[in-house]
C-alpha cells in the first residue's frame, strides 16, 4: 500500500460533504435476462462525496454506475439523481444525463470531431449555448486539464492519457453536478495514469461529487471519503478508506485486498 497516486499536497479544504443528497438508490435490482446482476442495492450519496467502488471483475460495478445515468435500465427499486427520479420517461433521462458527467474506460471521444468540437457539441445542442460561449467554456476546461494547445487536433492524434483528459473536459463542459468514472485509467500506461488521476484529484479538490470505479487503491486512500466493495452484484462492505484498507471486516474484502495489494 505504498504507491500513492500523487506526490503533491492534496488540498482538502473544499472537499466538504454537504447534507444535500445527490443520489439515492433504494432497493434496486437488475437482471440481464435471467442473470441477477445487481441485488438489492441501497446507497445514498451526498453532494461533495468522493466514492470509490471496488470489487472483483464481473461483480457489477460498471452496471451499477451505468444505471445511474440510465445507460442501463434497472428493473426494480428506485433511483433518484439530483432530485429527479429515473423512470423510462425519456425527458427525465436526457435531463439527468445532461447533469451527470461520465468518463469511460475507452474514453469514447468522437473521432470525427476535433477536440474543441468534442467539447462544444453537447453544450451547443443540449444546453443551446451560443457557439462562442461554448468555445470559451471548452477552452477554459481544456486549460484545466492542461491540454489547451491540442484543441484543434483530432482524438486519433492524442495519447491515451490526453484523450482521457479531453473526455473529462468534455463532461465538465456540461457543468455537471455529479461525475461518474468507470475505470478511467485501466486502459492507460503508468505515466498517463498519473496525469489522469491528477486531473481527477483537482476535480475532487473543487468539491465535485464523484463516483469512481477504479483499481487505483492509492487514489481511493488519498481522495475518497468512502470506499464501497462489491461482490456478486451486492454491496458487501463500505467504510472510510482508512478503516476499509487497514481493518476490513468481511472475508471477501480481505481476500480481495490481499490479492489486489499483493501482500
Amino acid at each position, binding site marked *: 500500500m505504498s504507491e500513492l497516486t500523487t506526490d503533491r499536497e492534496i488540498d482538502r479544504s473544499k472537499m466538504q460533504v454537504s447534507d444535500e443528497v445527490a443520489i439515492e438508490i433504494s432497493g434496486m435490482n437488475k437482471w440481464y435476462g435471467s442473470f441477477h446482476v445487481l441485488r438489492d442495492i441501497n446507497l445514498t450519496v451526498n453532494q461533495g462525496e468522493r466514492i470509490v467502488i471496488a470489487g472483483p471483475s464481473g461483480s457489477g460495478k460498471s452496471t451499477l454506475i451505468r444505471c445511474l*445515468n440510465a*445507460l442501463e435500465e434497472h428493473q426494480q427499486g428506485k433511483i433518484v439523481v439530483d432530485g429527479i427520479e429515473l423512470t423510462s420517461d*425519456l425527458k427525465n433521462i*436526457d*435531463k439527468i*444525463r*445532461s*447533469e*451527470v*458527467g*461520465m468518463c*469511460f474506460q*475507452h*474514453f*469514447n*471521444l*468522437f*473521432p*470525427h470531431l*476535433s477536440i474543441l468540437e468534442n467539447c462544444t*457539441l*453537447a453544450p451547443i*445542442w*443540449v444546453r443551446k449555448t451560443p457557439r462562442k460561449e461554448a468555445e470559451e467554456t471548452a477552452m477554459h476546461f481544456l486549460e484545466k486539464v492542461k491540454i489547451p494547445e491540442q484543441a484543434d487536433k*483530432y*482524438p*486519433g*492524434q492524442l495519447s491515451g492519457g490526453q484523450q482521457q483528459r479531453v473526455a473529462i473536459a*468534455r*463532461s465538465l463542459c*456540461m457543468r455537471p453536478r455529479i461525475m461518474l468514472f468507470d475505470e478511467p485509467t485501466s486502459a492507460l500506461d503508468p505515466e498517463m495514469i498519473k496525469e489522469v488521476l491528477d486531473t481527477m484529484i483537482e476535480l475532487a479538490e473543487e468539491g465535485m461529487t464523484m463516483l469512481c470505479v477504479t483499481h487505483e487503491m492509492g487514489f481511493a486512500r488519498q481522495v475518497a471519503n468512502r470506499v464501497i466493495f462489491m461482490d456478486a452484484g451486492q454491496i458487501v462492505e463500505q467504510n472510510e478508506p482508512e478503516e476499509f484498507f487497514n481493518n476490513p471486516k468481511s472475508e471477501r474484502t480481505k481476500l480481495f485486498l490481499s490479492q489486489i495489494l499483493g501482500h
Partner: protein
Amino acid sequence: MSDIGFVRKDMLPEQAPPASEVGIIGWVRENLFSGIGNSVMTILSLAAIFYTLAALLPWVFSPTWNAGSLNECREILHAQGKEGHFAGACWGVIRERWIQLMFGFYPSDLYWRPIVTFGLMFVAVIPILFNMISRRMNWFLLAVVILLATFAFGGIIAWVLRILSAAGAAYLAYTLFATDKADRAEQIAQGAKRLPNPLIFSALFPFIFPWLLWGGSLWVPIGAILGFVIGYYVYAALAKTVGGLAGLIAGPLAAIIWWLFLVGTFAGVMESIIPLSIEAVESRKFGGFMLSITIGVVAIVGSLPLGIVLALGRQSDLLIVKALCVGFIEFIRGVPLITLLFVASTLLNVFMPPGTNFDIILRVLIMVTLFAAAYMAEVVRGGLAALPTGQYEGADSLGLNYWQAQRLVIMPQALKISIPGIVSTFIGVFKDTTLVSIIGLLDPLGLTNAIRADANWNGVVWELYGFIAVLFFVFCFSMSRYSMYLERKLQTGHK
C-alpha cells in the same frame, strides 16, 4: 577477448544512394525488372498493350467524321485502301446523332432548358460536395448561370432576370476581386453580414429541376414547397397544443393531403391570376443522357436519405417499424430491377383508377429510387454495425437525444465508413438506368436501336456503344474519384 570493444571515432557523413536506387533507372529496375518472373510479366504485358493499341488506334483515328451514312464511310475507307470489317470507325453517326443521344426527342428549340437545368444542378451540388468554395463564389456561379440562361428566351421576364443576375454577378465579382479569403474572414469576424447560405438554393433546386425539364406552371413547384410549409405549421401548432406525436402524424398528413388534392387547384387558380408558365414537354419526348442523368440523379439523391431511414428503422426497438423495414429491404433486394420496371410500366396501371395519368418517368423514378434505397440501407447498416457501442454511450451520456446522437455522432461516422459502398451503389444505380430501355424509354441504349434501324446507319455497332460507354465511364469514374477525395478529406487522425 579485447577486440570486442569498439568506439567510433568519426561519424559517417550522409551519402547519396547508389544510382540503381533512384531516378528512372532505379524505379524501372525496382518495379518492372526485379526478377526473372517479373521481367517476363513486364514484357508480356507490354506486348499485349502494344497489340491492342496497334489494332485499336487505326480504327479510332479514321477520317469518317463527315460521312452521312455507313456506305459513305466505307467509300472513304476504301479510297484509303482500307477494307474489311474493322477497317475503321464510322464516326459520322456520332456527328449526326449525338444531339439525339443527349436529348432524345426533346424539342430542339427547348434544348436550353435541360442545359440550364444541369448547369443549375452543378451550382446546387457544389456546396454539398465541396466545402472549400466560398459562399460568394457559389452565388456568383449561380448568377452567371442564370445570366447565360436568359439569352435562351425573350420577353420581359428575361430582361428582368438578365439585369438582376448581371448586377448580382458584377457585384459578387467585384467583391471577389476586392477582398481575398483572409480579408473576408476578417470582415466576418468583425461582424460583417454574411451572404445567405447557398444550401438554400440547393434545397430549392429539387423543385426547380422538374419544372424546367417538364415545363408547365411555376405555381406547381411553388405549391409543392407550400406543402412543406403547411406541414410544418400544422406540426408546430399541434406539437405545442396537443402533443409531439399528434404533430408528427398530422403534419405530414396535412402536407400529403395538400399535395394530392389541393396543389392542382391552387396552381390553376394562381395561374389564372398571374400566368407564369413555360411550354410543357411530354415524358415520352425525354431521352438520351438527359434521361439517364435525370433518373440517376433523382435515384441517387432520393435513395441516400431513404436508405438511412430504412437502416435506422431496421435497428429500431419498435417491432413494427423494424419488421416493415426488414420486409421492404429484403423484398426489394430479392427482386430484379427489371421486374420492378415492368411493374412500373404495365401492372401499376391496372391498380390505378381508370383515367389517372401517372407519368411513366415518375413511375420509373419511384421504382429505381426504392430499389437503390434498399441497397443503400444495407450499406449504411454495415457502417452502423462497424461503430463501437462506446460512441452511442458517449453521445447518450452527454444528454444528446436519439436524433441528435444520430445526426451529430453516429451518422457522420457510419456514412464515412460506408463511403466506398455508397458510391458503388450510386455507380451501380446510374448504370442500371440503361435498363429503362427495355420498357420502351429512350435512354442512350434505347436510342441505339432507333438509330440502327435507320437505313443509313444499319450495321453501325461499335461506334455507338463505344461513345455511350465512354460517356458512362466519365460519369462513373468521376464519382469514384470523388469518393476517394472525400475519404481523404474526412480522414482524421492517424490509422
